[in-house]
């Protein structure tokens, strides 16, 4: 009997751990000779004896399942679950009896009572046979799937019931709530999918007992439902109908995934495929372990804390978790596959909690391959050590720095002391003095420069600049009049501007129209500009010298374009069609001319006839490849109309690369053939024209001129910044238009205030001085006599008079006139600056 039992048990391992014991179940086929025709279910419990290091039999028993001979009895599954009525955990075993014909299947769930008796609990009949997907859950409840439908039965349900919704990819588990709730997760079926699109990417959950449907993604996110092989709910809470839970799932992607409320918290790569079951071991103080058993007898234990693999085993026939030692914490019992045919059922086993407890029998050292502690543990330790080391280093560095500072202070002190002793001045103060003197020098220089400037405005009547061409353009509501001059003489002209005079038919006095003038230097007709790009770059020093040298040459020999921009509307209102164009300039004799009072020269350039019906389509915008004079004029007009920003781009530690190429790659960018330095960016419409000029001085620095509206410039800059290296700095060059007018205005106002104050105080001071002179002529009197007293009174009265006079003083008329004159000059300058400023702000 004994031998037979164990033999059978070994072949069909239906084992479960229960109350610190391991129980084997087996059916016994009725033999014809023996007790008639009945099938029996045998069970046998073993408990572990530490002394013997072996499992000894604790109890056994049997129950009759069927008395009919032809019935075929099978054990479907056994498991320990909570009996809701008795509120204890009991071992349950599901057996099936097949009728002779095989049409109907009789299932019965038996429980093993505390008195070691098998008692029938639920019985039901099915027209089909359950497959592997059967679970025994709390209640006890038996749950299985058939044709994508979930069926269940329990004592409470009273018969076989069905889950109301159709699901595919079903995962079954239970929540560890005090009531205990079994749920089913799955994807809605195809038919429903098409009906309700909202659910397609959602997992659906359903409580078995009440049929309530909930959002399954709270437990398991959508993509995981298809690949989850087994699921274990660690903790769950249901407050106000909102479910929160932590779940561990083993997937077919060889991962153990830890979910918190449907979010993936941690992942552990599993070493084997096809996980079958997850169990949790509570090893007390030592933490928790997940034991995952796999197909073909592989087992893997994972620490809950670190989510790292703790140990691996192979050739395991079953894994059980219980307190086999009776020590208060749980252990893993691994029953290994027994190669030897005969003998005890528990010949080879291992009881361990991986934290010190380890009992094994019948296995060599090779059977248990405890993996080395994971690298992560080392990593954490090393991290901790590293941070300690680093903090130590910081302290050390600080100390060293302090030491260095002290040393330096000491050195300086000693140096100063020796200097004092030897009567020398210390080096430190000398530096400061140098700084001070340098500042003074600077001021002097600027004064000198100002003087120079004045001197340079020397007029000469000789050699008028020759006017090559006069043209005009109209863009939107502005008119641009331009003149190209060639000053043949070596004498430079300065202060060049254009003004436009209306020439109305009736009145004889022409009116001056407000204009904005600009001067451009045109390159000399000789084709020298293109030769600068050589294949093998010459040294930077040489090149920059040449560049500097080329400038003054240009000024003297090259042609000059002067443009004036004005609003079109006033011209049209006044019914004017003809305008005279006047050129103003100041010609200097030499760099150091002697004549101090520059007289402006006015030159009549010609007349411009406005015709609104003229076609002012810009050739440049149509075809920048053209090289005609018209296109050059178009370019000049554009430059005159558009606002200009000059930006200095500096990238200290990353070279800029090919910015020109980048600009040219942008949509709608074309090179202007007339002046290849400029790039035309004409992305959308004529109002959004943009002229760009990039001049790279070193691989790390360059200057970008942008001619466009402010918004466009900012947009362009934004995209440029994405291209430029992160450490790059972009700043506007001083003296670009927008900045300077405001600055000029501010300076003019300041100047006005200062000169007013100084002028008035000077006036009054001089007045006072005269008073003082007068006063000094009178000699001191002493109030000794009556006459003296009288004199004193006179003096006193004069004093009173003078204080009264001080409040509303009388000043010399000539001097006052002079003051007013100078003040008017200053105010005129201020007005001019204000005008320029308002124009600038209006236009930008």
């Amino acid at each position, binding site marked *: 009997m004994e031998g037979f039992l164990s033999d059978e048990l070994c072949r069909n391992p239906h084992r479960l751990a229960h109350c610190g014991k391991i129980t084997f179940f087996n059916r016994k086929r009725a033999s014809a000779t023996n007790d008639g025709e009945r099938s029996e279910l045998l069970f046998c419990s073993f408990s572990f004896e530490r002394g013997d290091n072996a499992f000894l039999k604790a109890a056994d028993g049997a129950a009759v399942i069927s008395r009919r001979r032809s019935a075929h009895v099978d054990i479907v599954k056994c498991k320990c679950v909570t009996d809701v009525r008795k509120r204890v955990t009991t071992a349950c075993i599901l057996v099936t009896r097949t009728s002779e014909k095989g049409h109907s299947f009789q299932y019965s769930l038996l429980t093993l009572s505390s008195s070691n008796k098998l008692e029938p609990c639920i019985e039901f009949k099915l027209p089909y046979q359950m497959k592997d997907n059967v679970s025994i859950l709390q209640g006890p409840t038996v749950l299985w799937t058939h044709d994508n439908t979930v069926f269940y039965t329990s004592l409470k349900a009273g018969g076989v019931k069905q889950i109301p919704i159709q699901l595919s990819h079903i995962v079954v588990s239970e929540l560890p709530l005090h009531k205990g709730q079994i749920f089913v997760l799955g994807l809605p079926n195809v038919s429903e999918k098409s009906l309700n699109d909202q659910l397609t990417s959602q997992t659906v959950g359903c409580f078995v007992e009440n049929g309530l449907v909930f959002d399954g993604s709270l437990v398991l996110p959508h993509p995981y439902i298809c690949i989850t092989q087994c699921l274990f709910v660690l903790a769950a809470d249901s407050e106000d109908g909102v479910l929160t839970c932590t779940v561990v799932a083993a997937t077919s*992607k060889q991962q153990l995934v830890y979910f918190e409320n449907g979010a993936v918290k941690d992942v552990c790569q599993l070493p084997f495929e096809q996980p079958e079951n997850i169990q949790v071991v509570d090893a007390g103080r030592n933490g928790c372990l997940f034991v995952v058993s796999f197909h073909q007898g592989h087992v893997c234990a994972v620490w809950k804390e670190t989510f790292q693999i703790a140990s691996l085993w192979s050739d395991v026939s079953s894994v059980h978790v219980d307190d086999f030692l009776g020590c208060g914490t749980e252990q893993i019992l691994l029953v290994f596959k027994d190669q030897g045919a005969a003998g005890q059922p528990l010949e080879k086993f291992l009881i361990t909690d991986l934290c010190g407890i380890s009992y094994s029998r019948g296995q060599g050292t090779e059977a248990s391959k405890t993996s080395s502690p994971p690298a992560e543990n080392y990593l954490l330790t090393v991290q901790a050590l590293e941070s300690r080391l680093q903090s130590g*280093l910081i302290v050390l560095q600080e100390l060293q720095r302090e030491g260095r500072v002290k040393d330096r202070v000491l050195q300086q002190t000693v140096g100063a002391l020796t200097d004092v002793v030897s009567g020398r001045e210390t080096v430190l103060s000398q530096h400061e003095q140098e700084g001070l003197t340098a500042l003074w020098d600077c001021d002097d220089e600027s004064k000198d420069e100002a003087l120079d400037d004045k001197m340079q405005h020397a007029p000469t009547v000789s050699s008028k600049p020759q006017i090559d061409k006069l043209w005009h353009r109209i863009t939107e509501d502005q008119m641009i009049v331009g003149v190209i001059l060639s000053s043949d003489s070596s004498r430079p002209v300065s202060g060049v501007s254009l003004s436009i005079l209306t020439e109305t038919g009736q009145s004889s006095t022409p009116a001056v129209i407000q204009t904005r003038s600009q001067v451009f230097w045109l390159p000399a007709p000789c084709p020298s500009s293109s030769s600068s790009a050589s294949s093998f770059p010459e040294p930077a020093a040489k090149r920059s010298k040449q560049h500097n040298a080329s400038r003054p040459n240009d000024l003297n020999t090259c042609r000059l374009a002067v443009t004036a921009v004005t609003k079109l509307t006033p011209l049209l209102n006044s019914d004017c069609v003809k305008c005279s164009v006047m050129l103003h300039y100041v010609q200097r004799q030499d760099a150091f001319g002697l004549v101090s009072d520059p007289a402006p020269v006015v030159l009549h350039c010609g007349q411009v006839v406005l015709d609104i019906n003229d076609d002012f389509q810009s050739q440049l915008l149509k075809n920048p490849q053209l090289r005609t004079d018209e296109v050059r004029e178009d370019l000049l007009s554009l430059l005159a109309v558009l606002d200009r920003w000059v930006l200095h781009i500096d990238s200290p530690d990353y*070279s800029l690369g090919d910015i020109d190429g980048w600009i040219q790659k942008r949509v709608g960018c074309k090179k202007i053939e007339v002046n290849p330095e400029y790039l035309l960016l004409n992305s959308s419409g004529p109002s959004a024209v943009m002229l760009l000029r990039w001049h790279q001085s070193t691989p790390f620095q360059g200057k970008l001129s942008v001619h466009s509206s402010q918004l466009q410039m900012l947009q362009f800059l934004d995209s440029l910044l994405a291209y430029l290296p992160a450490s790059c700095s972009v700043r506007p060059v001083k003296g670009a238009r927008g900045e300077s007018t405001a600055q000029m205005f501010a300076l003019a106002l300041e100047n006005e205030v200062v000169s007013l104050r100084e002028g008035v105080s000077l006036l009054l001071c001089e007045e006072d001085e005269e008073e003082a002179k007068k006063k000094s002529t009178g000699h001191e009197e002493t109030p000794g006599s009556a006459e003296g007293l009288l004199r004193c009174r006179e003096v006193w009265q004069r004093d009173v008079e003078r204080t009264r006079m001080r409040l509303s003083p009388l000043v010399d008329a000539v001097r006052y006139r002079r003051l007013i004159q100078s003040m008017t000059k200053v105010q005129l300058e201020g007005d001019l600056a204000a005008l320029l400023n308002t124009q600038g702000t209006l236009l930008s």
Partner: protein
Amino acid sequence: MAPPLSLLDTWVQENNELVNKCKQKGEQDAVSRDCSQPPLKWFSFEFHKLLRKIQGIPPNADHTQLELAVVFNAGVCSAAQSQVSEAELFLAQATERVLQMTGGDAGASDPLVRWRTVLNSVGDTALHPSVLYLLCLQWAIWLATCQLKTIQEFQEMSALFDTLCGGIGDGSVSEARPKSSNIPLLVMDPRRLIELLQICTSIALGAERLNEGRSSEALSSLQAASALPAPRALVAYTHLLSGSCLTHMRRPQMALQCYRKALETDSRCVCALYQSMLIYRQLGNTQAEIQALRLLHSTLMLPSAIEPALGSTHLLSPSLLLRSQSLSSLLSVPSALTVLHSLALKCVLYGRVSEGVEHYLDLLAVVHSEDQQGLHTEDATLPKLPELYLEAGAALLMARRPADCLALCNEVNSTTLELLPEKVVLEEPEERREAETRDMEGENSLAMVLWTAAAYLLQGHCHSHLKDWKQAVTHYTRCINLLVKVRFKKRDFQPQIPGADMDVKRGKDLCVLERLKGLSLAGRGICFIQIDKLKEALRDLQLGLQTFPECVGAGLWCGEVLWRLRRRREAAACWEKTWSLTTQSLDKSLPVYLQEPQSGPLLDSTELRHRIQELGPT
């Protein structure tokens, strides 16, 4: 409670948080070495963890962009820690999953074929840039593992990246900006990575070609690369390598221009300074060479020179990508001490004795302090310590500081005296190969003997400089006594003066030995003249001339002795013979302490000529 975010959103968030942290770390690293930030290892681990999560579910078209971004991030972090194989594994997994999703054929094992398949299978979809980013990483790995051939084979790569780069910054990005919270970020701007890869590839290829002797080809590609956007140090490298190419093409002046450009670009590019120094040396421009050496030394002494010049980017740094042997040999610069030594030596050899002495003293001070701190590492390019002492001593004597020279020589003698062997045998090279270990010992003991002898010689020179003839004779005698202990040995164990077909090293030892002997004999002879022991003087001077015929002093003084001994014709002949010798100032191949002393008693050649004239024709 807010509805839980979808998996995709949470993962994107997780990725972006990590990326932002990583970028913050990069910025803080740049500003100050803040240690509170988690190390790169941590980021690598976290990205890997996230990747495991993402790859834990089946390939999904919605998730692929995120997945590829995380693969890129994890790969960059791994590669930044030089864990190239890990990064490659990520790439292999990613390509496999992309192919799974697009239904491509995943059979190819050759990386080139695999990448082409992936690119084809992705086509022009939104995933195309993501796959290109991964290809960038692959490129970086190829570069880091010096697989330049593979990079060159992948011709279409550069075209692909041009399109990728072109797409950035022309408005296409700004359209996508509003949704930025949903876009997985990358730890490294792919465009910067591409720029870095392009210039690093150019530099590595240039170095490789230069090593293979294809200088002109390398030069053109390096010149093109110098215009690429890149960190300052790398631009400097392109100029530097161009200079090396030009040096190989025998255009030293143009090479000098390139080196100067490299220095102008990056002042920390000490290698350019070193190479210029070598060119000046090659051109024989000693003053410029000394100047360059001085600059090089002061640059190497700057604290910034210790820091690696390429540590600017905190993730994939150029130093990680430029690992080829040929490049590092081109970029190698001798240590500050070696530079200081050659500076000192050059100064002494080219007439800047006092300057040279100062450099020697600095050098000895540094070596001494390093020795005391136990830091002294054997610098193969620096001569042995006793030799340094002897060179410094010789320099001091030249600078007319005999007392200091005596002190240094005493130092040498005190260290070597105990180690002096009783007898040294100078063997022939055939013998040496048979007994390597014994020979090492023999070599050492020979060196000891030569050093001690040189020290005695210098001491003799010092004393004769101080006109302490007795002491001088003592020291010269010690030197001679020591030198006669060395015996030559031929194969048949018969002492014999070896022929000229000796190998260089042994030949040099022999030469040193001969010279020491000749100089010490001559020195002693001169001393004997001063104390009027003319016979002894004549003997020593003649012996000295025998072993070292080129010795000018010995020749002149020998004549003087003969003159005093009334053998005037012989004396005249002796002088004539000496003058007929090529008047070499200093022999550069021999140590400076083996040069003929310029101090001590001197004879005036014009006066001698007068005497000959007075003597009249024979």
